[in-house]
């Protein structure tokens, strides 16, 4: 930089640096409006994230409700039990001076029969007065439940412990039904026969829908997907996806499966780049003046030079390979049929799926080369659409490694209804073959 440039720079700096201009008032109004907006919800990705979370949470919460509903049913039955007991007069018990503690006492007394019992529920009544305590053995691997009946005759309290039949599960509301009916029907009934009648009574009280076994299964799947189509200069790359798909079994065979798969995919193609490299080629000394000195009668020329930098400002044209990459959330809704063969299950499934684009990385040719000035960029690689629709058809082989876990392998064919690309020149329905591997976790069976 010569002195003239330096002086001009100083003048420009001085002129511009202290310059102030009052902005139009609408700028502040817009800033205020933007600041009042919740930034997350104002973005497209925010909405997509919410939809994705809902897709995940709704089935999970449904499963959670399933558990809760058991408790609700259980508690509802016990509430009925209490209502019935109240009807026969808990207050009367109090009037007789029998405190709540005395009713709970038999539960503690349960330990006296030589077992460590975990008291799970205590219900009070009057039987001539009855208290029912449900206790579960904790010192034995074998689950053992007891009903304790307390009869209150005058000042005397009689405790009865009745072992329930093996396999009786107090967490299953259906198995409480006989207990409820017994408690409601007669407060002074001899309950010692109760366990013997259990099975028949349970079956009688269960509705057809209750007898059907319905349960949830969660599939965690990893899948490479191989593209089956190429178009001219565009090559759809193989993709990889990972997903969580909850499955609801409608009965022993039929199931409905949905969930979310995050898929990473891409395309390869070409772009024509017109650029200037801006490379510093070198320098030379430019003679801008010649003067002559005379010394001792000899004339000597003096060359005044300045250093000139030479830059590569020639335009280059290059065809460069580009790769665009995308992240999609795929949400399938599949209907399937499963059948057991020994320790294996085989199944078929089909259904639509929708893919939402979460992110995209559009390649810039020669982006790794520093200092390039791109004059014109003709990217021939089309960009994928934000949303795509697919049909999935597939089968699966499942190997049960335990009652809860199984390994699965699912070959699946995916057909894209709508063209993957928004560019009208690339309207072509593509297909892919996916091989899905993963683990199924059964819950609630």
């Amino acid at each position, binding site marked *: 930089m010569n002195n003239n*440039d330096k002086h001009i720079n100083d003048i420009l*700096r001085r002129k511009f*640096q202290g310059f102030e201009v*009052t902005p139009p008032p609408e700028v502040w109004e817009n800033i205020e409006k933007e600041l009042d907006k919740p930034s997350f919800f104002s973005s497209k990705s925010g909405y997509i994230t919410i939809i994705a979370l809902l897709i995940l949470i709704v089935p999970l919460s449904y499963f959670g409700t399933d558990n809760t509903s058991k408790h609700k049913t259980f508690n509802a039955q016990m509430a009925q039990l209490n209502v019935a007991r109240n009807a026969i007069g808990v207050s009367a018990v109090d009037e007789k001076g029998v405190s709540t503690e005395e009713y709970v006492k038999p539960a503690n007394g349960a330990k006296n029969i030589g077992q460590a019992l975990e008291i799970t529920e205590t219900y009070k009544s009057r039987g001539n007065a009855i208290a029912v305590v449900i206790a579960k053995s904790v010192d034995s691997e074998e689950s053992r439940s007891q009903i304790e009946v307390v009869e209150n005759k005058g000042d005397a309290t009689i405790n009865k412990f009745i072992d329930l039949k093996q396999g009786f599960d107090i967490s299953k509301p259906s198995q409480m039904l006989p207990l409820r009916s017994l408690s409601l029907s007669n407060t002074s009934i001899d309950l010692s026969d109760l366990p013997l009648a259990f099975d028949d009574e349970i079956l009688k009280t269960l509705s057809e829908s209750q007898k059907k076994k319905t349960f949830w299964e969660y599939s965690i799947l990893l899948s490479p997907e191989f593209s089956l189509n190429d178009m001219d200069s565009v090559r759809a790359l193989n993709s990889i996806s990972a997903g969580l798909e909850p499955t609801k079994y409608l009965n022993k065979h039929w199931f409905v499966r949905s969930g979310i798969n995050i898929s990473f995919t891409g395309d390869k193609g070409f772009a024509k780049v017109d650029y*200037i490299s801006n*490379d510093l080629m070198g320098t030379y000394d430019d003679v801008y003046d010649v003067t002559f000195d005379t010394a001792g009668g000899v004339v000597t020329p003096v060359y005044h030079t300045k250093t000139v930098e030479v830059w590569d400002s020639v335009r280059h044209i290059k065809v460069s390979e580009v790769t665009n990459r995308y992240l999609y959330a795929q949400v399938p809704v599949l209907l399937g049929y499963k059948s057991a063969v020994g320790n294996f299950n085989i199944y078929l499934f089909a259904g639509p799926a929708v893919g939402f684009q979460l992110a995209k990385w559009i390649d810039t040719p020669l982006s790794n080369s520093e200092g390039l000035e791109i004059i014109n960029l003709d990217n021939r690689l089309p960009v994928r659409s934000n949303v795509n629709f697919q049909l999935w058809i597939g089968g699966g082989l499942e190997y049960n490694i335990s009652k809860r876990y199984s390994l699965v392998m699912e070959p699946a064919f995916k057909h894209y209804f709508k063209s993957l690309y928004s560019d009208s020149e690339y309207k072509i329905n593509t297909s892919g073959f996916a091989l899905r591997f993963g683990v199924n976790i059964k819950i609630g069976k």
Partner: protein
Amino acid sequence: MKIDKAFINKLQKRDKKTQQSFYDTVSAKMYGVCLRFANSGDDANDILQEGFIRVFRHIDAYRGDGSFEGWVRRTIVNTAINYYEKEKKRGYKVDLEYVKKDYVTSESAIEKLSFNELLAIIRELPNGYRTVFNLNVIDGYTHKEIGAMLGISENTSKSQLSRARLAIQKRLSEIKEKENLE
């Protein structure tokens, strides 16, 4: 208005009155910066708006190192750079000078020009040239710093500045010739 630690704390708590007061104090200065970097008044408005939203939303990123106004200025400059980043990826539309001419620019010619006239000349520059010119000549960043900010090499920064300077000198010469003819 004094911009001290207590004031910045209020800004960090998103106090609306403090935000407006701060905007009223520094917006004119920052708008001057935006006008230099933008190639139109509308773009300058957008950059100022986007820049202040960034300042208010990311104010927690200010750690107290250096002056607060400097941090805000840097945020506004970065916003301006990002504003034209997309355009940069599509490529500059530049009429390139293949033969370097020498334009003699006198200091007095520049001194005579008003701010608006100078601004108009700078706005005529392609985005890349204008950005490097602003960052180097007015804001005093080195070519190395500019290279890091714009993701270009030091040599490219020098080259862009050289071309920017040439374009300004050419424009000044044209103005001078026009005045002489009149």
